[in-house]
């Protein structure tokens, strides 16, 4: 019997992507070394790599990365947790939703970066303002998705819970929370990504340490290699966070038969 081709076929497509990337780097290196492109803007990948190692060894990367991560983590939690709770309750209780909806609808469309100056006026230019700005940016996507997640739950599930005499608390913990989880998690993913953008943005504007600061100083002092390294690290951070969230989702939502990407 011939083995199913689908099962034994190794995925070779990713390797082609890697090859293309390496090819691209080689071309870039060659163009830079032979002075066919200006190294002022496009330094050779080997120079960027050397700069990366240097920043890694001196601890410059680590300090700024941890500063950004700390801000992102704290700000995100501060925004996502109330967003989650409020969203679930708004999704569950039409009355509560009716009361809260006007406020959410009014505040949500304001670009989160645009209120940063106001936050700084009120809370000063210290760490608190930055964390608040990040928190606000994470708050809304988590809230809206949590609310949608509960509202889109089939009413049958609530009827089953009632029919079996589930208390309000049981209904909340066994129906509302797990039922909305796939949508809540996609809200969390959007929230993290928005928070990351805002983290870099507020760091560009005002901070002592952080990836945004690194990017900004590299520009100010025209250390072009460091600029590339900072951008690269920021991108990798984003990718890592999204992969982690993807794994968490797969672990928490084993019942979902949707492809994990959709969740």
């Amino acid at each position, binding site marked *: 019997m011939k083995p199913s081709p689908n099962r034994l076929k190794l995925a070779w497509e990713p390797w082609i992507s890697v090859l293309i990337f390496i090819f691209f780097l080689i071309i870039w290196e060659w163009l830079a070394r032979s002075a066919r492109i200006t190294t002022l803007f496009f330094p050779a990948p080997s120079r960027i790599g050397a700069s990366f190692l240097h920043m890694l060894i001196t601890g410059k990367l680590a300090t700024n990365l941890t500063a950004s991560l700390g801000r992102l983590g704290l700000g995100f939690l501060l925004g996502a947790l109330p967003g989650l709770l409020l969203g679930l309750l708004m999704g569950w209780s039409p009355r509560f939703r009716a009361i809260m909806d006007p406020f959410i609808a009014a505040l949500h469309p304001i670009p989160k970066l645009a209120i940063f100056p106001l936050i700084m006026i009120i809370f000063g230019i210290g760490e608190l303002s930055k964390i608040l700005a990040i928190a606000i940016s994470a708050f809304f996507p988590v809230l809206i998705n949590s609310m949608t997640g509960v509202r889109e739950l*089939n009413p*049958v*599930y609530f*009827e*089953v*819970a*009632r*029919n*079996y*005499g*589930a*208390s309000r608390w*049981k209904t909340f913990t*066994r*129906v509302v929370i*797990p*039922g909305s*989880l796939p949508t809540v998690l996609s809200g969390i993913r959007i929230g993290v990504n928005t928070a990351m953008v805002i983290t870099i943005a507020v760091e560009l504007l005002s901070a002592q340490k952080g990836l945004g600061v690194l990017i900004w100083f590299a520009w100010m002092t025209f250390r072009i290699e460091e600029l590339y390294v900072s951008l690269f690290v920021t991108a990798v951070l984003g990718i890592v966070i999204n992969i982690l969230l993807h794994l968490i989702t797969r672990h928490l*939502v*084993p*019942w*979902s*038969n949707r492809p994990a990407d959709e969740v």
Partner: protein
Amino acid sequence: MGFQCKHISQTYRLRRGELVALQDLNISVNEQEFVCIVGPSGCGKTTLLKIIAGLFLPTTGQVVFTDAPETGHPRSAMVFQDLGLFPWMSIRENVAFGLETRGVNRKQRLATADELLEKAGLGEFKNSYPHQLSGGMRQRVAILRAFLTDPQTLLMDEPFGSLDSQTRLVMQEELLRIWKEHRKTVMYVTHDIEEAIYLGDRVLVMSGRPGSIQADIPINIPRPRQTADRDRPEVEAIRWRIWKMIESEVRQELGVQS
């Protein structure tokens, strides 16, 4: 423990006037009786069942359960047409849900659920999730869940409505088998006339909009019933009689002239 529906009416207020879904329904169901309700779609069968289940109150009238002692058992358990199982719970957790809401501890309720699943031959699926099971298996699990709480009355809302016809035949026999073991009062809503006759001690025929009981037909086929009983001449006669009662409404609904 039977129950009675007394003068039940259900009215929905719409933007343009009112919709009378149910009008002055009076039904009396005896203990351990298997009563089927058939009617055209949209006649308010499901609404009636949900009222009996206590999921909402009717506009007027009431449901009275005859001598319901405080046994600790729920008055009714409902089996829904579809989606009744929680997709986020494993099969055993789903089956145990009725015990969970009554505060039975986790170990004990899962053990009870496992035992029941094992007896039903579904043991190997106890840790699966509903989406991993076929539609027929899911409904068997839903029925087990309802039986596990040992309700006084079982309310079934087209439980096999979304199954293919072969699966449905087997499930109907299976249901009768379980029912024979644990005699319960059953109220079974369906749009399948043959199914109603095959299962029920009595078939109530509903008319649509506003929903009311048109006929109350006793089915005197002896139990246990066999699949072959479907071919009995009296089944044929009753089926024809019921179809004549609801045909015009079905045609009207579809806009098809007779």
